[in-house]
């Protein structure tokens, strides 16, 4: 692949000079390829820079020899010698700084831009015109003074070449070469860490849940009188063991879910579907619960919601958390509602990871005691340390709402809470409907 393509406009009209320029360009392209491959060994680079420097010396000397031979004005020859020294200084600097440079492509790019502008497109074009004038019979001093060509026309091929070069060398090299070496290593490390995390999660999940399920199993047999008849007090205690164990199991499950979400182990599996049926199923479940706990439960789903990308499991989990909380904190006689709408993005008041025009808004509203304003903004933060008051006054909500936030984000959406103490709370989740293509 050629990072730098020769352009006809680079030609000076002096065959020997152009040929040498082309050779220098070839050397730079070899350098580009080595850097693009990301596998430049010290020896390869040294060899390359050696060739570049050697050939540059030869090239500048040849040009100077030509100038003297034709008889161009000494001012021109001197200016060229300064360029010559400058060029070599830059090659040497590049070589010396190679270890310091995190971005060899940018280094090469800088070098080429100055070389192209000063030498090929500047000095040498001038020299060529100078020589042409002398060959046409003009006096060398007059030819040297006749510099009138505008720089504008010459700058175009330079800009084009540099842009092309920048794209190829800088962007690709940075992305590919660095990716090949550094990322390869990083990928391995991440994979190892991720495997370790997976194993740890699986193990801890098993270790925590297995004995807990045994406790629940034995308490169940006891409380049901299946291991012999119990006194009323014994039966009640067995029930207490079962209930307390069930609560702990819910917390353990939530913690494991949280750990999985934070480790990026839960993958979204969204399929296009109309959420109406799913919402009805969830509503039926909670209608029965509402009846049992003396709450009024209303569901209001907008007609004709239509298909949208949904992960059933995530949506169910989200609503279970929100409805579970609302039911838990709304005293008997209170009311819980689930309101589902399509809303424009302007209605979304939470940060969302991906932009969409329309969102599915899931609102769970209760008329319970509400949430204190100082606690409200911290509801979605995981375990604020040293705040026992939050944990006590809102026991059980801590993990649930963090899960809501993470699940909503996993689904490309966001979440928010509104509340006034004494007048209930409103929890909102927005899920994108028309995922915009990046």
């Amino acid at each position, binding site marked *: 692949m050629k990072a730098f393509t020769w352009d006809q406009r680079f030609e000076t009209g002096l065959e020997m000079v152009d040929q040498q320029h082309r050779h220098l360009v070839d050397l730079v392209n070899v350098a580009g390829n080595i850097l693009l491959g990301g596998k430049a060994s010290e020896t390869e680079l040294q060899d390359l820079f050696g060739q570049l420097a050697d050939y540059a010396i030869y090239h500048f000397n040849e040009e100077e020899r030509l100038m003297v031979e034709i008889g161009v004005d000494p001012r021109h020859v001197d200016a060229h010698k300064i360029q010559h020294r400058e060029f070599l200084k830059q090659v040497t600097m590049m070589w010396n700084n190679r270890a310091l440079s995190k971005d060899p492509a940018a280094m090469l790019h800088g070098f080429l831009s100055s070389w192209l502008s000063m030498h090929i497109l500047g000095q040498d074009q001038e020299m060529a015109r100078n020589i042409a004038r002398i060959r046409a019979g003009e006096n060398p001093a007059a030819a040297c003074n006749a510099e009138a060509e505008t720089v504008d026309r010459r700058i175009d091929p330079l800009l084009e070449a540099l842009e092309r070069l920048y794209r190829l060398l800088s962007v690709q090299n940075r992305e590919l070469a660095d990716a090949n070496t550094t990322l390869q290593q990083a990928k391995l490390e991440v994979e190892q860490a991720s495997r370790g995390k997976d194993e740890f999660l699986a193990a801890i999940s098993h270790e925590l*849940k297995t004995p807990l*399920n045994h406790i629940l199993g034995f308490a169940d047999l006891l409380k049901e009188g299946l291991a012999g008849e119990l006194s009323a007090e014994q039966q009640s205690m067995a029930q207490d063991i079962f209930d307390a164990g069930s609560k702990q199991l819910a917390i353990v499950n939530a913690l494991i879910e949280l750990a999985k979400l934070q480790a990026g182990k839960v993958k979204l599996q969204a399929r296009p579907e109309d959420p109406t049926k799913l919402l009805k199923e969830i509503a039926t479940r909670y209608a029965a619960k509402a009846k049992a706990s003396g709450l009024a439960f209303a569901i209001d789903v907008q007609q004709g919601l239509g298909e949208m990308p949904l992960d059933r499991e995530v949506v169910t989990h989200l609503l279970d958390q929100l409805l579970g909380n609302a039911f838990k904190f709304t005293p008997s006689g209170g009311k819980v509602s689930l309101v589902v709408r399509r809303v424009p993005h302007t209605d979304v008041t939470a940060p969302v990871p991906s932009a969409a025009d329309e969102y599915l808004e899931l609102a769970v509203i209760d008329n319970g005691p509400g949430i204190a304003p100082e606690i409200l903004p911290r509801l979605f933060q995981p375990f604020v340390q040293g705040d026992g008051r939050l944990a006590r006054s809102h026991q059980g909500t801590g993990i649930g709402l963090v899960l809501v936030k993470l699940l909503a984000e996993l689904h490309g959406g966001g979440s928010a809470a509104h509340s006034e103490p004494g007048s209930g709370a409103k929890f909102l989740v927005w899920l994108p409907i028309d995922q915009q293509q990046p």
Partner: protein
Amino acid sequence: MEQTKQSTILVVDDDEFNLKLLNKMLSIEGHAVRTAASGDAALTSVAEQLPDLILLDVMMPGLDGFEVTRRLKADARTRSIPIIMVTALEDQESRRKGLETGAADFLTKPVNRAELQMRVKSLLKR
């Protein structure tokens, strides 16, 4: 199978609490329960007396549930004994593998009492 005859169920699990729980859950339904704490012990128990049904944990050290099933299905005398495999909740791969090796049904941990009794009843009726 006559409904009146007591069925023998072999419960295989390397966890003593699971064994105790499953044993109790099945015996209160009137089944005769035998237990084995490993795959090897299960094969020995089956060789001694053919059970009507086997409740088999998948994840066990030594011979695991798949291997035990494979061996039982390869033997003409034990081929027809229905096997209920007990797997972890999220282990879809085990279900696929279990079906391939010839398990009749699955239960996920923690085993629910009502569900266990229902599955067992349904398999014994066949």
